[in-house]
């Protein structure tokens, strides 16, 4: 059905090949030792991340209406489209699977009523400037989903701030029968705290009965997805655990010193997008250190920076900046850890 000409075509080749291997798999065989291979490949690897994020996406639809599906679709169309263009420019065989995860995670950290063109701008920015200009899959310094989200929240602060809504009255079909939830504008718990020092009900924050991003509000699903990824070893358990540890440590210390400015521990842990970022963004292997100690340092850094930024800056949501800053430090952390590790050996050389 698929001719070899189509596969080798410079422009549609990557798309044809991707569809081919997506549906029919690969028949490549080993050419040298080891002659057997682990059965996991990047398709399954990335698919598992999407699967882990799926409960959050369904919860988002339930809470905020079917428009969420449109947000996810726009994110996929523009994200994968950009990736396909770069695959053609780079003459890659296939579109690499990482983009599918990026688009999903990016859609889940969008405010529910965000204009669709903003979604498109953000994902294109994230894919191009956080990933492709550095060399594509595996070479990126920043988490593309987080970079896209950060870009739109800095570029369109008003649009983002206006689009927070409270979830639908959750009964029966919930959001599955409604296109869009009524625009009952409600601030997120973090915004409320920053404005008036009001602490929302922790139970409501935990179960998602608050305003927030599409996939970030229902915490049990996030924890479930994160634990699933850790159990299957798709994500490294050290990073999320370290991030949570860093957040708990710094929020306990800061709350004791500045009880007015810094919210209590559980509010920090469940408020905003921290848990989602910890389980799905911080655990992104490409943009975090390769060394084990480095992973701990990076995770703790994200946790601490989140609390610091939430407490001492004008920005409400600290975790976006925290993840991006930790991404910047990743090569340095790895460099220091590796040179400390191999210091004795090097002394012998010189």
């Amino acid at each position, binding site marked *: 059905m698929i001719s070899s000409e189509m596969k080798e075509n410079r422009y549609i080749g990557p798309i044809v090949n991707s569809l081919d291997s997506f549906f029919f798999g*690969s028949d490549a065989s080993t050419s040298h030792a080891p002659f*057997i291979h682990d059965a996991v490949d990047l398709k399954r690897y990335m698919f598992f991340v999407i699967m882990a994020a799926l409960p959050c996406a369904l919860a988002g639809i339930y809470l905020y209406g079917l428009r969420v599906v449109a947000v996810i679709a726009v994110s996929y169309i523009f994200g994968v489209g950009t990736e396909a263009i770069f695959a053609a420019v780079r003459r890659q065989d296939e579109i690499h699977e990482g983009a599918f995860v990026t688009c999903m995670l990016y859609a889940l950290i969008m405010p529910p009523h965000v204009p669709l063109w903003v979604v498109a701008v953000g994902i294109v920015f994230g894919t191009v400037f956080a990933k492709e200009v550095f060399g594509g899959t595996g070479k990126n310094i920043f988490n593309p989903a987080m970079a896209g989200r950060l870009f739109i929240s800095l570029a369109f602060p008003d649009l983002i701030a206006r689009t927070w809504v409270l979830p639908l009255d959750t009964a029966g079909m919930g959001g599955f029968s409604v296109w869009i939830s009524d625009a009952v504008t409600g601030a997120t718990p973090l915004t409320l705290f920053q404005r008036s020092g009001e602490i929302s009900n922790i139970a409501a924050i935990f179960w998602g009965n608050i305003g927030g991003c599409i996939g970030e509000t229902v915490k049990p699903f996030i924890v479930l997805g994160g634990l699933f990824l850790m159990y299957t070893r798709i994500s490294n358990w050290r990073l999320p655990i370290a991030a949570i540890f860093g957040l708990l440590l710094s929020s306990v210390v800061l709350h004791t010193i500045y009880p007015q400015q810094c919210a209590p521990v559980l509010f920090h842990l469940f408020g905003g997008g921290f848990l989602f970022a910890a389980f799905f963004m911080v655990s992104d292997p490409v943009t975090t250190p390769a060394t084990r100690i480095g992973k701990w340092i990076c995770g703790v850094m994200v946790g601490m920076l989140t609390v610091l930024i939430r407490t001492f800056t004008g920005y409400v949501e600290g975790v976006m900046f925290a993840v991006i800053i930790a991404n910047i430090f990743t090569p340095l952390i790895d460099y220091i850890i590796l040179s400390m590790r191999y210091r004795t050996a090097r002394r012998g050389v010189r």
Partner: protein
Amino acid sequence: MAKYKTLSFKGGYRFKRFLCLDGEISLQRFEPKSVSIAFGNMAVQVRQGHFVRKGDRIASKSNSDGNDFPVFASMTGRVTVVNDERVEICKEISTHILDSYSTKTNHMRENILYSAFLGGVSQVTNVDEISHIVISAVHTQPVAVALNTWLHDNTRVCVDAITFLSDCYTNSHITICCLKRDLQRIEEFTSLCSLNDKCSIAVVPPKYPSENRFLQWSMITGQPVSAIDGMAASERMFFDMPSLILFGRALCQHQPPTDILLPVYCADPEIRTIMQVPVGTCLKDLLSFLQIDTQGKRIIAGGLLTGDEITDSSYMLTRSTTSLTIVPETIKRSFMWFLRPGRDLDSYTKSFAASVIPVAKKLTTGTQGSLRACINCGYCAEVCPAGLYPHLLYNDVTHDLLEEALEKQIDRCIDCGLCSYVCPSKIPLATTLREAKKSVYTECAHLMHNRDYAI
């Protein structure tokens, strides 16, 4: 149960529910019509037309001690061809009365000893130099032979061999490495061994590559794993089970060991056996004896993770051929294959049903996916038994930064192949690192002296 000490190492990977030749498999003998024996750079002592008997010396290198690694004829017959590399011996149909074969030559026991090593010590000059003998009774490869299968019928022979070694090498200590789950099944062997006070039993973790001798040595001494250190060492000897058995039998029969024990596994037709064949047997003869059709199949000699593919059917089995695995080559594409439940698929990740359902795993030569860029997932670093970062080394090597790679201790790689196995991006890490090590040895030799290793 006998006393033992427990050893451990970081990393490694346990191949669960793969194939294991277990139970009471008796050895199947195969006598080919002709053999072809390689003699390396030694001096040939036979000419075309000579009669040789099984166990006669056909080549040797003389040094000050008289002999070193002699090569023996593995069958009785007439020498038909002698060329630069090989001696071919063909079975005689008529019988000949040969000169009486003296079994009381001075060096007979040493000859037996030297020829029994499989890649052990290369230059043994002094018996007193040997301080450690390590016997590896470990099977952690995906296709392996269980220890009780090796010891079935051979317990006495192995104990004899160990006793001889401890008598012969008076300064040495013998360590038998085995898995904990085997200990109860080989109680006769362990209790006999524990009578020897120079012999101790060490339990190694049931993870691949516990049978690697560099790793075993590092576990015994507590030093960091180093492959380059092991190459130059002359104070230790390594035996695996087949060579110990052959060595023991040779001692009992007072004849040099000229056969090899070859576990053979074939998926279709289902063949699981251990063959005893003379050194130099042609692979083609053996396969036709076993009635294996090699059309569309891949023949792998010496382990699935570290072995070599044999494409030439006139391949001659040598002492270093440790096993034969024959796997079907055809790989079927399947619809949406990344969604398959994977009852019989092995993976480091627990993302397949096989990690919860106890079903035997399938052996296939498929790469199970296509080549991608490294995403820094860190699986290779998690499983590396030497504690290296294979993906960082790969990055250095592919950018021609050999000194960087040496700084990251590429020379400690023990070639176990696990990094390539677990890589979800299907990057050929092991092959690349193996090639790179060779160029590191030549190009960075001046940097390799006086190195301390970080653990």
